[in-house]
Protein backbone atom coordinates (compact mmCIF):
# COMPACT_ATOMS: atom_id res chain seq x y z
CA UNK A 1 0.00 0.00 0.00
CA UNK A 2 1.29 3.41 -0.90
CA UNK A 3 1.73 5.95 1.85
CA UNK A 4 -0.87 8.18 0.16
CA UNK A 5 -3.45 5.49 0.64
CA UNK A 6 -2.50 5.02 4.30
CA UNK A 7 -2.82 8.78 4.69
CA UNK A 8 -6.30 8.67 3.14
CA UNK A 9 -7.41 5.87 5.45
CA UNK A 10 -5.96 7.63 8.50
CA UNK A 11 -7.72 10.90 7.77
CA UNK A 12 -10.90 8.94 7.08
CA UNK A 13 -10.65 7.30 10.49
CA UNK A 14 -10.05 10.63 12.23
CA UNK A 15 -12.94 12.29 10.43
CA UNK A 16 -15.11 9.28 11.24
CA UNK A 17 -14.22 9.48 14.92
CA UNK A 18 -15.40 13.09 14.96
CA UNK A 19 -18.65 12.09 13.25
CA UNK A 20 -19.07 9.41 15.90
CA UNK A 21 -18.41 11.97 18.64
CA UNK A 22 -21.09 14.40 17.59
CA UNK A 23 -23.51 11.59 16.85
CA UNK A 24 -23.21 9.77 20.17
CA UNK A 25 -25.34 12.35 21.98
CA UNK A 26 -28.01 12.13 19.30
CA UNK A 27 -28.17 8.35 19.37
CA UNK A 28 -28.42 8.35 23.16
CA UNK A 29 -31.62 10.41 23.29
CA UNK A 30 -32.95 8.81 20.15
CA UNK A 31 -32.66 5.40 21.76
CA UNK A 32 -33.86 6.60 25.15
CA UNK A 33 -36.93 8.48 24.06
CA UNK A 34 -37.53 7.76 20.40
CA UNK A 35 -37.20 11.47 19.61
CA UNK A 36 -35.34 12.85 16.61
CA UNK A 37 -33.69 15.99 17.86
CA UNK A 38 -33.73 18.43 14.96
CA UNK A 39 -31.89 20.91 17.19
CA UNK A 40 -28.91 18.58 17.51
CA UNK A 41 -26.75 20.44 15.00
CA UNK A 42 -27.43 23.66 16.87
CA UNK A 43 -26.23 22.13 20.12
CA UNK A 44 -22.96 21.37 18.30
CA UNK A 45 -22.92 24.97 17.08
CA UNK A 46 -23.30 26.27 20.64
CA UNK A 47 -20.42 24.04 21.76
CA UNK A 48 -18.30 25.63 19.03
CA UNK A 49 -19.24 29.13 20.18
CA UNK A 50 -18.36 28.21 23.76
CA UNK A 51 -14.86 27.30 22.55
CA UNK A 52 -14.74 30.59 20.66
CA UNK A 53 -15.81 32.62 23.70
CA UNK A 54 -13.41 30.78 25.99
CA UNK A 55 -10.61 31.70 23.64
CA UNK A 56 -11.57 35.38 23.16
CA UNK A 57 -12.36 36.06 26.82
CA UNK A 58 -9.78 33.96 28.64
CA UNK A 59 -7.39 33.03 25.85
CA UNK A 60 -8.01 29.41 26.81
CA UNK A 61 -7.51 26.36 24.59
CA UNK A 62 -9.40 23.08 24.47
CA UNK A 63 -8.27 22.12 27.99
CA UNK A 64 -10.51 24.91 29.30
CA UNK A 65 -13.10 24.93 26.52
CA UNK A 66 -14.03 21.23 26.68
CA UNK A 67 -15.15 21.09 30.33
CA UNK A 68 -16.86 24.48 30.10
CA UNK A 69 -18.73 23.46 26.94
CA UNK A 70 -19.77 20.19 28.58
CA UNK A 71 -21.15 22.04 31.62
CA UNK A 72 -22.91 24.79 29.69
CA UNK A 73 -24.50 22.40 27.23
CA UNK A 74 -25.49 19.88 29.91
CA UNK A 75 -27.36 22.61 31.78
CA UNK A 76 -28.99 23.78 28.58
CA UNK A 77 -29.97 20.22 27.72
CA UNK A 78 -31.62 19.69 31.10
CA UNK A 79 -33.47 23.01 30.88
CA UNK A 80 -34.70 22.15 27.37
CA UNK A 81 -35.85 18.79 28.63
CA UNK A 82 -37.98 20.18 31.44
CA UNK A 83 -39.35 23.16 29.52
CA UNK A 84 -40.09 21.49 26.19
CA UNK A 85 -39.04 17.94 25.47
CA UNK A 86 -40.84 16.32 28.40
CA UNK A 87 -44.13 17.65 27.10
CA UNK A 88 -43.71 16.70 23.45
CA UNK A 89 -42.38 13.15 23.85
CA UNK A 90 -45.87 11.88 24.51
CA UNK A 91 -47.25 13.60 21.41
CA UNK A 92 -47.16 12.34 17.82
CA UNK A 93 -43.85 12.15 15.98
CA UNK A 94 -44.70 15.27 14.01
CA UNK A 95 -45.06 17.31 17.20
CA UNK A 96 -41.57 16.19 18.18
CA UNK A 97 -40.15 17.33 14.85
CA UNK A 98 -42.08 20.58 15.15
CA UNK A 99 -40.90 21.20 18.72
CA UNK A 100 -37.25 20.37 18.18
CA UNK A 101 -37.12 22.28 14.90
CA UNK A 102 -38.58 25.31 16.68
CA UNK A 103 -35.91 24.87 19.33
CA UNK A 104 -33.30 24.73 16.56
CA UNK A 105 -34.52 28.06 15.19
CA UNK A 106 -34.46 29.60 18.66
CA UNK A 107 -30.87 28.48 19.27
CA UNK A 108 -29.68 29.36 15.76
CA UNK A 109 -31.12 32.86 15.73
CA UNK A 110 -30.08 33.58 19.30
CA UNK A 111 -26.52 32.90 18.14
CA UNK A 112 -27.19 34.95 14.99
CA UNK A 113 -28.47 37.83 17.05
CA UNK A 114 -25.66 37.72 19.59
CA UNK A 115 -22.61 36.79 17.50
CA UNK A 116 -23.63 38.01 14.03
CA UNK A 117 -23.45 36.07 10.78
CA UNK A 118 -19.73 36.27 10.10
CA UNK A 119 -17.73 33.04 9.93
CA UNK A 120 -15.18 32.83 12.71
CA UNK A 121 -12.23 30.55 13.19
CA UNK A 122 -10.01 29.79 16.14
CA UNK A 123 -6.30 30.52 15.64
CA UNK A 124 -4.40 27.52 14.36
CA UNK A 125 -1.76 28.00 17.01
CA UNK A 126 -4.22 26.90 19.71
CA UNK A 127 -3.80 23.24 18.84
CA UNK A 128 -1.14 23.66 16.24
CA UNK A 129 0.91 21.80 13.73
CA UNK A 130 0.95 18.36 12.27
CA UNK A 131 2.45 15.23 13.73
CA UNK A 132 4.52 12.90 11.57
CA UNK A 133 3.50 9.34 12.36
CA UNK A 134 5.45 6.82 10.32
CA UNK A 135 5.02 7.70 6.64
CA UNK A 136 2.03 10.00 7.16
CA UNK A 137 1.24 13.37 8.76
CA UNK A 138 -1.75 14.12 10.92
CA UNK A 139 -3.10 17.49 12.09
CA UNK A 140 -2.91 17.51 15.86
CA UNK A 141 -6.27 19.28 16.24
CA UNK A 142 -7.95 16.41 14.40
CA UNK A 143 -5.98 13.81 16.29
CA UNK A 144 -7.10 15.37 19.57
CA UNK A 145 -10.75 15.34 18.44
CA UNK A 146 -10.45 11.74 17.27
CA UNK A 147 -8.92 10.50 20.51
CA UNK A 148 -11.45 12.33 22.69
CA UNK A 149 -14.23 10.96 20.46
CA UNK A 150 -13.12 7.42 21.16
CA UNK A 151 -12.82 8.07 24.90
CA UNK A 152 -16.25 9.74 25.18
CA UNK A 153 -17.95 7.02 23.12
CA UNK A 154 -16.38 4.24 25.19
CA UNK A 155 -17.31 6.03 28.45
CA UNK A 156 -20.93 6.47 27.31
CA UNK A 157 -21.14 2.84 26.31
CA UNK A 158 -19.67 1.67 29.64
CA UNK A 159 -22.00 3.97 31.53
CA UNK A 160 -25.00 2.49 29.78
CA UNK A 161 -23.97 -1.15 30.03
CA UNK A 162 -21.94 -1.42 33.25
CA UNK A 163 -23.45 0.95 35.84
CA UNK A 164 -26.67 1.02 37.83
CA UNK A 165 -27.49 4.45 36.40
CA UNK A 166 -27.10 3.01 32.91
CA UNK A 167 -29.35 0.06 33.68
CA UNK A 168 -31.98 2.43 35.03
CA UNK A 169 -31.78 4.56 31.90
CA UNK A 170 -32.12 1.51 29.67
CA UNK A 171 -35.05 0.30 31.77
CA UNK A 172 -36.81 3.61 31.17
CA UNK A 173 -36.02 3.37 27.46
CA UNK A 174 -37.46 -0.14 27.35
CA UNK A 175 -40.71 0.63 29.16
CA UNK A 176 -41.15 3.83 31.14
CA UNK A 177 -44.29 2.67 32.97
CA UNK A 178 -42.77 -0.61 34.11
CA UNK A 179 -39.62 1.23 35.20
CA UNK A 180 -41.70 3.65 37.24
CA UNK A 181 -43.39 0.74 39.00
CA UNK A 182 -39.90 -0.52 39.90
CA UNK A 183 -39.19 2.79 41.63
CA UNK A 184 -37.21 4.44 38.84
CA UNK A 185 -38.29 7.96 38.00
CA UNK A 186 -38.51 8.19 34.19
CA UNK A 187 -38.41 11.98 34.23
CA UNK A 188 -35.17 12.08 36.13
CA UNK A 189 -33.53 9.42 33.95
CA UNK A 190 -34.59 11.15 30.75
CA UNK A 191 -33.39 14.51 32.05
CA UNK A 192 -30.03 12.90 32.84
CA UNK A 193 -29.95 11.40 29.36
CA UNK A 194 -30.55 14.84 27.84
CA UNK A 195 -27.87 16.36 30.04
CA UNK A 196 -25.36 13.66 29.08
CA UNK A 197 -26.22 13.83 25.39
CA UNK A 198 -25.94 17.61 25.36
CA UNK A 199 -22.61 17.46 27.24
CA UNK A 200 -21.18 14.98 24.72
CA UNK A 201 -22.44 17.21 21.91
CA UNK A 202 -20.88 20.28 23.54
CA UNK A 203 -17.53 18.51 23.84
CA UNK A 204 -17.77 17.60 20.16
CA UNK A 205 -18.48 21.22 19.23
CA UNK A 206 -15.61 22.57 21.34
CA UNK A 207 -13.16 20.20 19.64
CA UNK A 208 -14.45 20.62 16.09
CA UNK A 209 -14.10 24.40 16.46
CA UNK A 210 -10.32 23.89 16.33
CA UNK A 211 -10.42 22.97 12.66
CA UNK A 212 -13.85 24.03 11.37
CA UNK A 213 -15.42 27.47 10.87
CA UNK A 214 -17.92 28.71 13.44
CA UNK A 215 -21.17 30.33 12.25
CA UNK A 216 -24.80 30.29 13.43
CA UNK A 217 -25.87 28.17 10.46
CA UNK A 218 -23.13 25.55 10.80
CA UNK A 219 -25.49 23.23 12.68
CA UNK A 220 -27.62 22.52 9.63
CA UNK A 221 -24.72 20.92 7.75
CA UNK A 222 -23.54 18.96 10.76
CA UNK A 223 -27.02 17.74 11.70
CA UNK A 224 -27.50 15.88 8.41
CA UNK A 225 -24.21 14.04 8.89
CA UNK A 226 -25.24 13.15 12.43
CA UNK A 227 -28.66 11.88 11.28
CA UNK A 228 -27.06 9.65 8.67
CA UNK A 229 -24.46 8.36 11.13
CA UNK A 230 -27.02 7.57 13.80
CA UNK A 231 -29.49 5.82 11.55
CA UNK A 232 -26.76 3.87 9.78
CA UNK A 233 -25.50 2.71 13.19
CA UNK A 234 -28.99 1.93 14.48
CA UNK A 235 -30.99 4.20 16.76
CA UNK A 236 -29.85 4.05 20.34
CA UNK A 237 -26.69 2.09 19.69
CA UNK A 238 -23.57 3.94 20.85
CA UNK A 239 -21.16 1.34 19.40
CA UNK A 240 -23.27 1.42 16.24
CA UNK A 241 -22.75 5.19 15.94
CA UNK A 242 -19.01 4.69 16.39
CA UNK A 243 -18.83 1.99 13.71
CA UNK A 244 -21.04 3.99 11.34
CA UNK A 245 -19.04 7.17 11.95
CA UNK A 246 -15.74 5.45 11.17
CA UNK A 247 -17.24 3.76 8.11
CA UNK A 248 -18.64 7.02 6.75
CA UNK A 249 -15.35 8.82 7.39
CA UNK A 250 -13.38 6.20 5.47
CA UNK A 251 -15.88 5.99 2.59
CA UNK A 252 -15.88 9.77 2.29
CA UNK A 253 -12.09 10.10 2.19
CA UNK A 254 -11.52 7.11 -0.08
CA UNK A 255 -14.13 8.24 -2.60
CA UNK A 256 -12.79 11.81 -2.49
CA UNK A 257 -9.36 10.36 -3.27
CA UNK A 258 -10.48 7.82 -5.86
CA UNK A 259 -13.33 9.57 -7.73
CA UNK A 260 -13.10 13.24 -6.81
CA UNK A 261 -13.94 15.52 -3.90
CA UNK A 262 -17.31 16.66 -5.26
CA UNK A 263 -18.61 13.09 -5.37
CA UNK A 264 -17.73 12.06 -1.82
CA UNK A 265 -21.06 13.01 -0.23
CA UNK A 266 -23.02 11.54 -3.13
CA UNK A 267 -21.29 8.21 -2.55
CA UNK A 268 -21.96 8.40 1.19
CA UNK A 269 -25.70 9.11 0.79
CA UNK A 270 -26.13 6.46 -1.90
CA UNK A 271 -24.43 3.80 0.21
CA UNK A 272 -26.50 4.89 3.21
CA UNK A 273 -29.79 4.37 1.38
CA UNK A 274 -28.52 1.06 0.05
CA UNK A 275 -27.47 -0.04 3.54
CA UNK A 276 -30.90 0.81 4.97
CA UNK A 277 -32.53 -1.11 2.16
CA UNK A 278 -30.51 -4.20 3.01
CA UNK A 279 -30.67 -3.71 6.76
CA UNK A 280 -33.69 -1.58 7.73
CA UNK A 281 -32.66 -1.15 11.38
CA UNK A 282 -29.11 0.04 10.79
CA UNK A 283 -25.88 -1.81 11.45
CA UNK A 284 -26.38 -2.48 15.16
CA UNK A 285 -30.00 -1.50 15.79
CA UNK A 286 -32.47 -3.87 17.34
CA UNK A 287 -35.18 -5.21 15.08
Amino acid at each position, binding site marked *: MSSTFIQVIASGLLLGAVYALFSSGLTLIWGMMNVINFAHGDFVMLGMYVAFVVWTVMGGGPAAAVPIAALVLASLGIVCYFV*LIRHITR*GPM*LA*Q*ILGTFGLALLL*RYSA*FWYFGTSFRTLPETLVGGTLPIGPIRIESSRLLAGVVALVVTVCLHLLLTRTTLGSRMLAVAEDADAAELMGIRPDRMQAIAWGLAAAATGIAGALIANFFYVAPSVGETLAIVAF*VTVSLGGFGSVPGALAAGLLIGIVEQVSAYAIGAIYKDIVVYALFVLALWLR*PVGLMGRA
Partner: protein
Amino acid sequence: MMKRAAWPIASAVLLGYPLIFSTPFQQRLGALILLYAIGASAWNIVGGYAGLISVGHAVFFGCGAYGALASYQYLGLPPIGGLPIGVAASIGIAAIVGIPTLRLSGHYFSMATIAVAELVRLVVSNSEWLGGAQGLSGPPVPRTLLDLSFVSALPYYYVFLGVLAAMLALTRQMERSRIGYYLRAIHDSERAARTLGVPVSRYKLYAYMMSAALTAVAGALYAVMFGFVDPESGLGILISIKMLIMAALGGAGLLLGPLAGAVILVPLEEFSNSLLGGVGAGVTFLVYGAIIVVIARLQPGGLLRPIPGALRKRSARAKS
Protein backbone atom coordinates in the same frame (compact mmCIF):
# COMPACT_ATOMS: atom_id res chain seq x y z
CA MET B 1 -75.45 26.81 11.26
CA MET B 2 -71.89 28.02 11.83
CA LYS B 3 -70.57 25.30 9.60
CA ARG B 4 -72.84 26.15 6.70
CA ALA B 5 -71.76 29.78 6.78
CA ALA B 6 -68.06 28.95 7.03
CA TRP B 7 -67.47 27.92 3.40
CA PRO B 8 -68.98 30.97 1.65
CA ILE B 9 -67.19 33.27 4.12
CA ALA B 10 -63.86 31.52 3.59
CA SER B 11 -64.29 31.65 -0.19
CA ALA B 12 -65.21 35.33 -0.08
CA VAL B 13 -62.17 36.14 2.07
CA LEU B 14 -59.84 34.20 -0.23
CA LEU B 15 -61.31 35.69 -3.42
CA GLY B 16 -61.41 39.23 -2.07
CA TYR B 17 -58.13 39.38 -0.18
CA PRO B 18 -55.90 40.81 -2.97
CA LEU B 19 -58.52 43.43 -3.88
CA ILE B 20 -58.78 44.72 -0.32
CA PHE B 21 -55.09 44.35 0.56
CA SER B 22 -53.87 45.68 -2.75
CA THR B 23 -50.31 46.88 -2.16
CA PRO B 24 -47.71 44.86 -4.10
CA PHE B 25 -46.27 43.48 -0.86
CA GLN B 26 -49.65 42.27 0.37
CA GLN B 27 -50.60 40.70 -2.96
CA ARG B 28 -47.25 38.96 -3.19
CA LEU B 29 -47.71 37.76 0.37
CA GLY B 30 -51.11 36.33 -0.51
CA ALA B 31 -49.72 34.51 -3.55
CA LEU B 32 -46.88 33.07 -1.49
CA ILE B 33 -49.25 31.86 1.22
CA LEU B 34 -51.25 29.99 -1.42
CA LEU B 35 -48.10 28.59 -3.05
CA TYR B 36 -46.82 27.22 0.25
CA ALA B 37 -50.28 25.92 1.07
CA ILE B 38 -50.22 23.98 -2.22
CA GLY B 39 -46.84 22.44 -1.32
CA ALA B 40 -47.86 21.62 2.23
CA SER B 41 -51.20 20.15 1.09
CA ALA B 42 -49.34 17.89 -1.31
CA TRP B 43 -47.05 16.77 1.51
CA ASN B 44 -50.10 16.25 3.72
CA ILE B 45 -51.31 13.32 1.60
CA VAL B 46 -48.34 11.14 2.46
CA GLY B 47 -47.18 12.79 5.70
CA GLY B 48 -50.56 13.58 7.20
CA TYR B 49 -53.02 10.98 5.99
CA ALA B 50 -50.65 8.01 5.64
CA GLY B 51 -48.38 9.14 8.49
CA LEU B 52 -45.19 8.60 6.50
CA ILE B 53 -43.05 11.52 7.64
CA SER B 54 -41.08 12.42 4.54
CA VAL B 55 -38.36 15.00 5.15
CA GLY B 56 -37.25 14.85 1.54
CA HIS B 57 -40.12 16.27 -0.46
CA ALA B 58 -37.80 18.94 -1.84
CA VAL B 59 -36.84 16.34 -4.46
CA PHE B 60 -40.34 16.47 -5.95
CA PHE B 61 -40.60 20.24 -5.58
CA GLY B 62 -37.28 20.44 -7.43
CA CYS B 63 -38.54 18.10 -10.18
CA GLY B 64 -41.39 20.50 -10.90
CA ALA B 65 -39.22 23.63 -10.76
CA TYR B 66 -36.38 22.19 -12.83
CA GLY B 67 -38.80 20.52 -15.23
CA ALA B 68 -40.44 23.87 -15.97
CA LEU B 69 -37.25 25.84 -16.48
CA ALA B 70 -35.35 23.09 -18.30
CA SER B 71 -38.12 22.78 -20.87
CA TYR B 72 -37.91 26.53 -21.44
CA GLN B 73 -34.12 26.34 -21.69
CA TYR B 74 -33.89 23.36 -24.04
CA LEU B 75 -37.25 23.14 -25.80
CA GLY B 76 -38.24 26.79 -25.82
CA LEU B 77 -41.58 25.93 -24.24
CA PRO B 78 -43.26 28.35 -21.87
CA PRO B 79 -42.19 27.23 -18.37
CA ILE B 80 -45.66 26.01 -17.46
CA GLY B 81 -45.44 23.69 -20.48
CA GLY B 82 -42.77 21.78 -18.58
CA LEU B 83 -45.28 20.85 -15.92
CA PRO B 84 -46.05 17.37 -17.32
CA ILE B 85 -42.32 16.65 -17.60
CA GLY B 86 -41.75 17.64 -13.99
CA VAL B 87 -44.73 15.66 -12.77
CA ALA B 88 -43.67 12.59 -14.74
CA ALA B 89 -40.10 12.81 -13.42
CA SER B 90 -41.48 13.22 -9.93
CA ILE B 91 -43.67 10.14 -10.15
CA GLY B 92 -40.76 8.15 -11.58
CA ILE B 93 -38.43 9.19 -8.77
CA ALA B 94 -41.15 8.49 -6.19
CA ALA B 95 -41.48 4.95 -7.50
CA ILE B 96 -37.72 4.35 -7.56
CA VAL B 97 -37.20 5.84 -4.09
CA GLY B 98 -40.43 4.55 -2.60
CA ILE B 99 -39.91 0.86 -3.25
CA PRO B 100 -36.77 0.51 -1.10
CA THR B 101 -37.60 3.19 1.52
CA LEU B 102 -41.32 2.80 2.19
CA ARG B 103 -40.73 -0.46 4.01
CA LEU B 104 -38.55 1.32 6.57
CA SER B 105 -40.30 2.09 9.80
CA GLY B 106 -40.90 5.50 11.38
CA HIS B 107 -37.72 7.51 11.82
CA TYR B 108 -35.67 5.36 9.47
CA PHE B 109 -37.97 6.35 6.62
CA SER B 110 -37.57 10.03 7.50
CA MET B 111 -33.80 9.73 7.56
CA ALA B 112 -33.70 7.85 4.25
CA THR B 113 -35.79 10.59 2.60
CA ILE B 114 -33.39 13.27 3.91
CA ALA B 115 -30.47 11.34 2.45
CA VAL B 116 -32.16 10.92 -0.94
CA ALA B 117 -32.99 14.63 -1.08
CA GLU B 118 -29.42 15.61 -0.26
CA LEU B 119 -28.17 13.10 -2.83
CA VAL B 120 -30.31 14.64 -5.56
CA ARG B 121 -29.34 18.18 -4.51
CA LEU B 122 -25.65 17.30 -4.80
CA VAL B 123 -26.09 15.56 -8.15
CA VAL B 124 -27.96 18.55 -9.57
CA SER B 125 -25.41 21.00 -8.12
CA ASN B 126 -22.74 19.16 -10.11
CA SER B 127 -24.74 18.79 -13.29
CA GLU B 128 -23.77 21.28 -15.99
CA TRP B 129 -26.96 20.45 -17.88
CA LEU B 130 -29.19 21.59 -15.03
CA GLY B 131 -27.20 24.76 -14.47
CA GLY B 132 -24.97 23.47 -11.66
CA ALA B 133 -24.76 25.71 -8.61
CA GLN B 134 -26.03 28.71 -10.62
CA GLY B 135 -29.35 27.11 -11.43
CA LEU B 136 -31.71 27.79 -14.33
CA SER B 137 -33.68 30.89 -15.29
CA GLY B 138 -36.94 31.46 -17.13
CA PRO B 139 -37.59 33.85 -20.02
CA PRO B 140 -36.15 37.29 -19.12
CA VAL B 141 -38.95 39.07 -21.04
CA PRO B 142 -42.35 37.43 -21.48
CA ARG B 143 -42.75 36.27 -25.09
CA THR B 144 -46.44 35.43 -24.95
CA LEU B 145 -49.12 35.40 -22.30
CA LEU B 146 -48.40 31.68 -21.87
CA ASP B 147 -45.05 32.47 -20.26
CA LEU B 148 -47.13 33.62 -17.29
CA SER B 149 -44.62 36.30 -16.46
CA PHE B 150 -46.33 39.20 -14.70
CA VAL B 151 -45.02 42.14 -12.74
CA SER B 152 -47.97 42.15 -10.38
CA ALA B 153 -48.57 39.21 -8.07
CA LEU B 154 -52.34 39.44 -8.63
CA PRO B 155 -52.58 36.96 -11.54
CA TYR B 156 -50.42 34.49 -9.65
CA TYR B 157 -52.69 34.82 -6.67
CA TYR B 158 -55.73 33.72 -8.63
CA VAL B 159 -53.89 30.97 -10.51
CA PHE B 160 -52.59 29.57 -7.22
CA LEU B 161 -56.02 29.88 -5.63
CA GLY B 162 -57.51 27.83 -8.45
CA VAL B 163 -54.82 25.17 -8.17
CA LEU B 164 -55.19 25.01 -4.39
CA ALA B 165 -58.97 24.67 -4.68
CA ALA B 166 -58.57 21.85 -7.20
CA MET B 167 -56.01 20.12 -5.02
CA LEU B 168 -58.17 20.38 -1.91
CA ALA B 169 -61.17 19.06 -3.83
CA LEU B 170 -59.06 16.12 -4.96
CA THR B 171 -57.84 15.51 -1.42
CA ARG B 172 -61.41 15.68 -0.12
CA GLN B 173 -62.43 13.11 -2.71
CA MET B 174 -59.53 10.93 -1.64
CA GLU B 175 -60.49 11.25 2.03
CA ARG B 176 -63.88 9.72 1.29
CA SER B 177 -62.75 7.00 -1.07
CA ARG B 178 -61.16 3.63 -0.53
CA ILE B 179 -57.60 4.99 -0.65
CA GLY B 180 -58.39 7.53 2.09
CA TYR B 181 -59.71 4.88 4.45
CA TYR B 182 -56.77 2.61 3.67
CA LEU B 183 -54.26 5.38 4.35
CA ARG B 184 -55.80 6.29 7.69
CA ALA B 185 -55.89 2.61 8.63
CA ILE B 186 -52.20 2.33 7.76
CA HIS B 187 -51.51 5.46 9.80
CA ASP B 188 -53.27 4.09 12.88
CA SER B 189 -51.69 0.66 12.76
CA GLU B 190 -49.88 -0.78 9.82
CA ARG B 191 -50.00 -4.27 11.25
CA ALA B 192 -53.73 -4.17 11.92
CA ALA B 193 -54.39 -2.81 8.42
CA ARG B 194 -52.31 -5.59 6.89
CA THR B 195 -54.16 -8.20 8.93
CA LEU B 196 -57.47 -6.86 7.68
CA GLY B 197 -56.35 -7.29 4.11
CA VAL B 198 -55.28 -3.78 3.18
CA PRO B 199 -52.57 -4.01 0.51
CA VAL B 200 -50.30 -1.82 2.63
CA SER B 201 -47.16 -1.57 0.50
CA ARG B 202 -49.11 -0.83 -2.67
CA TYR B 203 -51.23 1.92 -1.13
CA LYS B 204 -48.27 3.53 0.60
CA LEU B 205 -46.59 3.71 -2.80
CA TYR B 206 -49.75 5.15 -4.41
CA ALA B 207 -49.95 7.84 -1.73
CA TYR B 208 -46.26 8.61 -2.11
CA MET B 209 -46.53 8.94 -5.90
CA MET B 210 -49.67 11.05 -5.70
CA SER B 211 -48.08 13.35 -3.15
CA ALA B 212 -44.93 13.55 -5.29
CA ALA B 213 -46.89 14.50 -8.39
CA LEU B 214 -48.76 17.30 -6.59
CA THR B 215 -45.56 18.57 -4.96
CA ALA B 216 -44.06 18.85 -8.45
CA VAL B 217 -47.01 21.08 -9.38
CA ALA B 218 -46.06 23.39 -6.49
CA GLY B 219 -42.46 23.39 -7.72
CA ALA B 220 -43.48 24.26 -11.29
CA LEU B 221 -45.67 27.14 -10.06
CA TYR B 222 -42.77 28.40 -7.96
CA ALA B 223 -40.52 28.36 -11.03
CA VAL B 224 -43.14 30.16 -13.12
CA MET B 225 -43.58 32.92 -10.54
CA PHE B 226 -39.90 33.46 -9.69
CA GLY B 227 -38.46 32.53 -13.10
CA PHE B 228 -35.46 31.07 -11.37
CA VAL B 229 -34.37 27.98 -9.47
CA ASP B 230 -31.05 26.87 -8.00
CA PRO B 231 -30.15 23.80 -5.93
CA GLU B 232 -30.75 25.62 -2.64
CA SER B 233 -34.12 27.18 -3.46
CA GLY B 234 -35.41 24.14 -5.34
CA LEU B 235 -33.92 21.18 -3.55
CA GLY B 236 -32.61 22.42 -0.18
CA ILE B 237 -33.58 20.62 3.03
CA LEU B 238 -35.36 23.78 4.19
CA ILE B 239 -37.98 23.30 1.44
CA SER B 240 -38.78 19.82 2.76
CA ILE B 241 -38.90 21.04 6.34
CA LYS B 242 -41.14 24.00 5.53
CA MET B 243 -43.77 21.79 3.89
CA LEU B 244 -43.72 19.52 6.92
CA ILE B 245 -43.79 22.34 9.48
CA MET B 246 -46.71 24.14 7.83
CA ALA B 247 -48.81 21.00 7.56
CA ALA B 248 -47.98 19.91 11.10
CA LEU B 249 -48.59 23.34 12.57
CA GLY B 250 -52.04 23.65 11.08
CA GLY B 251 -52.93 20.00 11.55
CA ALA B 252 -51.45 17.12 9.56
CA GLY B 253 -54.02 14.80 8.09
CA LEU B 254 -56.67 17.53 8.11
CA LEU B 255 -57.90 18.99 4.84
CA LEU B 256 -57.31 22.65 5.74
CA GLY B 257 -54.39 22.12 8.14
CA PRO B 258 -51.66 23.01 5.62
CA LEU B 259 -53.45 26.20 4.56
CA ALA B 260 -53.80 27.26 8.19
CA GLY B 261 -50.10 26.61 8.77
CA ALA B 262 -49.15 28.65 5.70
CA VAL B 263 -51.38 31.55 6.76
CA ILE B 264 -49.47 31.77 10.04
CA LEU B 265 -45.88 31.08 8.99
CA VAL B 266 -45.50 32.65 5.55
CA PRO B 267 -46.25 36.23 6.70
CA LEU B 268 -43.76 35.84 9.54
CA GLU B 269 -41.10 34.68 7.15
CA GLU B 270 -41.82 37.39 4.60
CA PHE B 271 -41.61 40.10 7.24
CA SER B 272 -38.30 38.61 8.31
CA ASN B 273 -36.99 38.60 4.76
CA SER B 274 -38.07 42.15 4.10
CA LEU B 275 -36.12 43.18 7.19
CA LEU B 276 -33.11 41.05 6.28
CA GLY B 277 -29.79 42.73 6.82
CA GLY B 278 -31.08 44.58 9.84
CA VAL B 279 -31.19 43.24 13.37
CA GLY B 280 -34.88 42.57 12.74
CA ALA B 281 -34.29 39.38 10.76
CA GLY B 282 -32.82 37.48 13.71
CA VAL B 283 -35.57 38.65 16.03
CA THR B 284 -38.45 37.69 13.74
CA PHE B 285 -36.98 34.23 13.24
CA LEU B 286 -36.81 33.97 17.02
CA VAL B 287 -40.53 34.71 17.07
CA TYR B 288 -41.03 32.13 14.30
CA GLY B 289 -39.18 29.51 16.36
CA ALA B 290 -41.05 30.44 19.53
CA ILE B 291 -44.45 30.11 17.84
CA ILE B 292 -43.57 26.66 16.54
CA VAL B 293 -42.33 25.56 19.97
CA VAL B 294 -45.40 26.89 21.76
CA ILE B 295 -47.80 25.19 19.35
CA ALA B 296 -45.91 21.88 19.52
CA ARG B 297 -46.08 22.14 23.31
CA LEU B 298 -49.74 23.14 23.67
CA GLN B 299 -51.41 21.72 20.55
CA PRO B 300 -49.25 18.78 19.46
CA GLY B 301 -51.81 17.65 16.88
CA GLY B 302 -51.85 21.01 15.10
CA LEU B 303 -53.98 24.13 15.49
CA LEU B 304 -57.08 22.89 13.70
CA ARG B 305 -57.26 19.57 15.45
CA PRO B 306 -60.15 19.62 17.89
CA ILE B 307 -59.05 19.64 21.51
CA PRO B 308 -60.17 16.38 23.18
CA GLY B 309 -61.87 18.33 26.00
CA ALA B 310 -63.88 20.49 23.61
CA LEU B 311 -65.04 17.45 21.69
CA ARG B 312 -66.31 15.84 24.85
CA LYS B 313 -68.17 19.02 25.78
CA ARG B 314 -69.82 19.15 22.39
CA SER B 315 -70.97 15.55 22.48
CA ALA B 316 -72.25 16.07 26.03
CA ARG B 317 -74.25 19.03 24.79
CA ALA B 318 -75.62 16.96 21.93
CA LYS B 319 -76.82 14.32 24.35
CA SER B 320 -78.64 16.68 26.70
